[in-house]
């Protein structure tokens, strides 16, 4: 996968936006200044035209005519480039005209009209004012005399100024970019440093170090706080799961050692010296028995692992609506041979069906594990009682033995994997201390509880409740 850098992207975005901003600023400034200058030029043109009109006066004759004071014409706006002017009276008779005059076509209607034109290789802007009254108005002069003044001036000064201005603004923008772009890059780099620190610290996490030390800067960064918290809680979860797995593995390996040691010693002692075929046969049968025990242990461990995995939600299952009683009956049926062998009675009492949503095999396994313990600890010719009932929310199964009871301090330990209350009793019947762990894992996977109650000399009761199917 192609990788990309947040820093590079952000820097690119900042540079591009600053560039766009500078370009925009440049054009806007140039446009407005240009307009501003043109407006000033036009005002100037109007002033010139008016001052030209002011040079028209009446002659000192009896029938005065309009005259023009040629010598009073102001100098051109731009040195070396002559301004052009033309004055007519209302009858269209030319009163005054600059030395040179091009043929112009200006919109005739408007009172004031501007026009641009090229003349003599020069750009000109012209203004024509109509109906300008003659200033030199005295008694006896015709009131109806109006002038039409046209004044044109080269626009090169404006164009030059605008060009110069453009250069200045562009230079300013480039200068500004030179300062702001490095500043932005530095700021971004600086701002992203806590993220890099956090990544460096996260890289230190390993199976021997589960502590994330995000560093003061990352802790003080608001944007990173949620990330840091998420990482920390994720690490805690992982650590817990990892430790659990490792403990299970260690326990399992430890528990496997004994059956393997037995199997190995059986084979080795068989091979110690030449033996008769009957002896070999007996030895091989012993090996088979040893292997059966090993197999049983492996099966139990896998069962436990699966139940816990399911409880952790990583295993999907199909569940059916079943009657709690039928699973108990099935379990009791399968435990009866053992009970019979030990001379123990099993009494079952129940009333009415209790619907639960479960896999019947799971529940049967739980009852079998609990019943096996109960039968083991119950002295011969006594009985184990199974009570199947319910409360409003739960189906409740109580399995009670009449054994010696479990000491108070051992009660919290009995569900621990590979825990054996008294190793000898468990070993006598080939237990590995996994039955109760499996029962608990399965019941908890169904959202139920399993509570042991014990009284010395009276017996132990296991009370299991699992949610009813409503």
């Amino acid at each position, binding site marked *: 996968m192609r990788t990309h850098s947040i820093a590079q992207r952000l820097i690119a975005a900042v540079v591009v936006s600053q560039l766009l901003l500078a370009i925009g600023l440049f054009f806007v400034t140039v446009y407005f200044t240009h307009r501003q200058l043109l407006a000033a030029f036009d005002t100037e043109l109007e002033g010139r035209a008016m001052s030209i009109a002011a040079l028209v006066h009446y002659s000192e004759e009896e029938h005065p005519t309009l005259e023009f004071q040629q010598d009073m014409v102001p100098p051109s706006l731009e040195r070396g480039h002559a301004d052009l002017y033309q004055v007519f009276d209302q009858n269209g008779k030319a009163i005054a005209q600059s030395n040179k005059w091009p043929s112009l076509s200006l919109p005739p209607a408007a009172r004031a009209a501007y026009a641009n034109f090229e003349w003599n290789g020069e750009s000109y802007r012209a203004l024509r004012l109509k109906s300008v009254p003659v200033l030199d108005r005295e008694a006896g002069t015709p009131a109806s005399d109006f002038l039409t003044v046209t004044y044109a001036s080269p626009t090169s000064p404006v164009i030059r100024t605008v060009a110069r201005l453009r250069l200045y603004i562009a230079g300013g923008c480039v200068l500004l970019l030179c300062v702001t772009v490095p500043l932005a890059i530095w700021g971004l780099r600086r701002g992203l440093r806590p993220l890099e620190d956090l990544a460096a610290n996260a890289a230190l996490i390993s199976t021997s170090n589960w502590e994330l030390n995000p560093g003061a800067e990352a802790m003080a960064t608001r944007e990173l706080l949620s990330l840091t918290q998420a990482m920390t809680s994720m690490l805690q979860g992982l650590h817990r799961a990892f430790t659990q797995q490792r403990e299970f593995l260690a326990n399992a390996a430890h528990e496997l050692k004994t059956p393997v*040691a037995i199997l*190995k*010693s059986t084979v080795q002692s068989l091979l110690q010296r030449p033996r008769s075929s009957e002896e070999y046969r007996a030895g091989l049968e*012993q090996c088979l028995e040893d292997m059966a025990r090993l197999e049983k242990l492996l099966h139990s461990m896998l069962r436990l692992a699966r139940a816990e995995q399911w409880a952790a939600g990583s295993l999907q299952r199909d569940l059916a609506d079943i009657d709690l009683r039928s699973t108990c009956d099935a379990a009791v049926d399968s435990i009866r041979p053992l009970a019979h062998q030990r001379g123990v009675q099993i009494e079952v009492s129940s009333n009415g069906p209790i619907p639960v949503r479960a896999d019947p095999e799971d529940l049967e396994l739980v009852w079998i594990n609990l019943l096996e313990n109960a039968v083991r600890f119950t002295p011969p010719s006594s009985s184990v009682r199974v009570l199947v009932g319910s409360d409003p929310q739960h189906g409740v199964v109580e399995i009670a033995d009449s054994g010696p009871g479990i000491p108070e301090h051992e009660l919290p330990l009995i569900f621990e994997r590979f825990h054996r209350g008294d190793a000898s009793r468990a070993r006598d019947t080939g237990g590995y201390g996994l039955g109760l762990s499996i029962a608990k894992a399965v019941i908890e996977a169904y959202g139920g509880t399993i509570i042991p109650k014990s009284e010395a000399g009276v017996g132990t009761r296991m009370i299991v409740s699992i949610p009813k199917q409503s």
Partner: protein
Amino acid sequence: MRVLIVEDERRLAENVARSLREGAGYAVDCCFNGEDGLYMAENNPYDLLILDLMIPKLDGRTLLTRLRSQAARFPVLILTARDEKESVVALLNAGADDYLCKPFDLGELMARSKALIRRGKGQTAAVLKVADIEISTADLTVRRGGKPVPLTAMEYRVLEYLAHRPGAVVSKTELLEHLYDFNWERFSNVIEVYISGLRRKLEHGDTKLIHTLRGQGYMLRA
């Protein structure tokens, strides 16, 4: 030599016992819980105790501490399923002499047992020598002047026990206690039979090896 095995896995205990009886010629008693083990260890003179740690009623560690506090002198070999350094150190400090991790090799267990017994009796070599007699404890054979001497199993056991304590007076009762396990009927006159058999096979001419001290016992000395 007589060995006590305290191990709650019956099958494992029986396999080890069989292997020690057949491969080392030891008398072996088995106990399947700590209480029985302590009782047996307190009331019988063993040459070696093989002790599992995870045993019911009285755990191996406590048993060991109790025995050592009673000044029991025989070596103790621990069988353990744990092999962490700390627990091994703690065990040795509690008075254990050696340990083996499950699943162990029976051959190794036997070799270690022999070495522990040897050391417990102040010997170092696996081949015991008295005069020109060599007793190889590794393969249970005896040579005199380099030539193999055919001995019965019981004769070998008597000789091996005496050879572990050369120059010491060993009573008939001591021999009986160390050569037979708990379930055996003991008759002291059988010892005399084995001694005379040994004398016939090992002594030539005037060289006396096994001396009888009237009313006290026997002594192996060149």
